């Protein structure tokens, strides 16, 4: 339970368990890991946006504890952690996502190695 936002956090997602022994110890010093935690949140947001930009979505930080996902029409959704991120992405998109999708994989490759880029140019010239 978070005393500030009144949100009850029943489950810590496994991707948020980077800090050692977080789950084992019941003692936590206030602010102990705060700085690195914020830094990691920003890194994660930047990484997520690399993938999400392919779908035209954008993730941003919200109050340092949750995330906000926005699409280009301005619709927004609150995201608790990575466990629900992909479900909400699908909700906004209306289609399923898949990291094994060849289209997505192609978009993520560096531009020089992308397949099909040259074909696009040829079509434009014609």
């Amino acid at each position, binding site marked *: 339970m978070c005393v500030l936002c009144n949100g009850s956090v029943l489950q810590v997602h496994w*991707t948020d368990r980077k800090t050692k022994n977080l789950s084992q110890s019941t003692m936590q010093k206030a602010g102990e890991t705060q700085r690195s935690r914020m830094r990691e949140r920003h890194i994660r947001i930047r990484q997520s946006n690399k993938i999400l930009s392919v779908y035209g979505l954008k993730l941003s930080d919200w109050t340092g504890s949750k995330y906000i996902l926005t699409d280009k029409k301005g619709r927004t959704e609150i995201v608790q952690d990575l466990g629900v991120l*992909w479900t909400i992405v699908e909700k906004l998109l209306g289609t399923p996502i898949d990291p094994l999708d060849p289209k997505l994989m192609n978009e993520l490759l560096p531009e020089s190695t992308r397949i099909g880029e040259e074909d696009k140019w040829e079509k434009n010239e014609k």
Partner: protein
Amino acid sequence: MGKKRKVTVITGFLGSGKTTLLTHLLKGPSLKNTAVLVNEFGKVGLDHHLLRRIDERTLLLGGGCLCCSVREDLVNALRELLDNDHRGDIEPLERIVIETSGLADPAPILFTVLTDSVLQHHLTVDQVIVTVDAVNGQFHLDRQNESVKQVAAADKIIITKTDMASENEVELLASRLLTINPSAEIIKSIHGNIDNHQLFAPNEKVKSTPLISLVESNSFQGKHAPAARSISLTFDQPLDWSAFGLWLSMLLHARGEEILRVKGMIDVGEDGPVMLNGVQHIIHPPEHLDEWSDEDKRSHIVFIMRSIDPEQILSSLHAFQNILGSRASIREPVEVL
């Protein structure tokens, strides 16, 4: 608060010798502070002061797949045990052994223990032990999907009834099991005769022995239609934990039902590796080790999946390479016995 109590799951196909194994275990003195949950009191007289019976009642969560279902019976039984323990009615618990029925999928049990709001703070899943019958094991693997699932979820595989099958048969079975699940440790036994220490010792195979590669896995195709395939990968650079979590959570979200198992040691650029262990959608809380056990400090990850081409995993990782900051490659082929 003290240490978390360990949960060991014993599963295996119908008649593969789970109860025999358990009977033998209960005779030993090492199970003193252990509670045992069994599915049915069989004809074999199990005698233990902390023996409980559970009916398999599954509660499917709305919208969830089968592996993300809560075993209501198990929650009740485990909470009751914890209650008794806290009140001091029974001797302090160190371990709880859960024996499943032969057709049970181990995934819901893990899901239950790892996500229940009370249980997750008191229990940790230690390992999944799977018994496979030396005589009928091959047949079960061919015909029964449950059997393949059980093997994929295993940390340790006990080949039982080895006295009733020829040595050749046992070896064939062992190599087939390793193809399905390269990360499992295989123990052979007769009449459930097994050293308790060996059984409950942690499986450190991911880090110690070389794993079989994709090449090996595919060589079985001629003989059996592959119900499950595995790929083991290594990464040349330390992996970025949050990027890898992003990729894996996306993969499990999209293909969780087809990914039977993920297991590995990941170098996240700290002193020690992170142990990753997952069955279908369910990822155990990652464990951070203080140091590497040997010289090889690269990340190793094994994926066991059905109906996904292992090559797809590799090319997806290559596509995400920019974000991950490390390039994946298949581990060099190693001779199997």
